[in-house]
């Protein structure tokens, strides 16, 4: 039998240009086919199904697809989002410094104040690191964000990041209940008893 669909969620991926936001969404990067089309036109958003505690959540994941370069992210991009993944490049301190700007923008445009945030320090497979893990962790704690270091290249931590974020959103019932009224079944008596959500869900696919 198919699992029940718990809810549908809108997730944003934001951060400076070149930090690897788009590639965070890619699980396979071999060269058998030419992904020319997506590269030329650009991907607007993706629907992904993720399993959390035996329930399926459908995610609509929006990547800025380069618009951040021109600072043209519109309020509609942010509207209704329940989760946001904030990405920086651990080999470029400037992308870490700019996180404050992104948080400000988020605060300005987000229609909810309980949006779940996750910080991703990307490209840890490179050796010219400029931002160490502790700095990332500290920043995340200060702003009540989940934190993970990742490498899209090795796919380390990426699946984990999505699962943790979704887990956290689901643990914040006010954030998604209203979205699920006409979609499948609500989670029964699952809430509570699931303590700190950081770590422990890294099923590398």
């Amino acid at each position, binding site marked *: 039998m198919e699992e029940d669909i718990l809810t549908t969620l809108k997730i944003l991926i934001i951060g400076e240009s070149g930090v690897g936001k788009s590639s965070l969404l890619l*699980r396979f990067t071999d060269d*058998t086919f030419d*992904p020319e*089309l*997506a590269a030329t036109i650009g991907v607007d958003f993706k*629907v992904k199904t993720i399993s959390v505690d035996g329930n399926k959540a459908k995610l*609509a994941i929006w990547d800025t697809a380069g618009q951040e370069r021109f600072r043209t992210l519109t309020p509609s991009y942010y509207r209704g989002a329940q989760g946001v993944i904030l990405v920086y490049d651990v080999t470029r301190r400037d992308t870490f410094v700019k996180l404050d700007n992104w948080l400000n923008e988020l605060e300005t445009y987000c229609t909810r104040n309980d949006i779940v945030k996750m910080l991703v320090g990307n490209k840890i497979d490179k050796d010219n690191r400029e931002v160490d893990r502790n700095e990332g962790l500290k920043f995340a704690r200060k702003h009540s964000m989940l934190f993970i270091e990742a490498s899209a290249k090795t796919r380390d931590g990426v699946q984990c990041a999505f699962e943790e974020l979704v887990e956290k959103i689901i643990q914040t019932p006010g954030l998604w209940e209203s979205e699920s009224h006409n979609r499948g079944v609500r989670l029964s008596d699952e809430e509570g008893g699931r303590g700190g959500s950081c770590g422990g869900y890294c099923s590398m696919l």
Partner: protein
Amino acid sequence: MRMDETLVSADGKNSRAVLCQRCGCRVLSVGTATLAKRELLLPSMKKKSSLADESNPDTELLVEHWLVHDMFTFENVGFTKDVGNVKFLVCADCEVGPIGWHSLEEKSNFYVALQRVRHE
């Protein structure tokens, strides 16, 4: 090319899960889409097609599609930015495509070409 009749169940739905040809990512679960015949032009998948150059479209006419009416029916799928009033569908995991077609004028129709996917 004749389509494989065993792909369609008695009620016209997909009897097998629909997967990405390249990476196996699951696009549609069993029984979630209806077979629909419609002539749609999709840019070629494997060759370097320059979509920016519309005077030289390297396209293919495809007729058999899996049709769904809600984007959240998909297990995994990516939508390109608008090309005219069309969004092409690509694999969510590897971005190969286009595997399907969606017109902004038909808000609740999403087509996935049978020839552009694999069946489990």
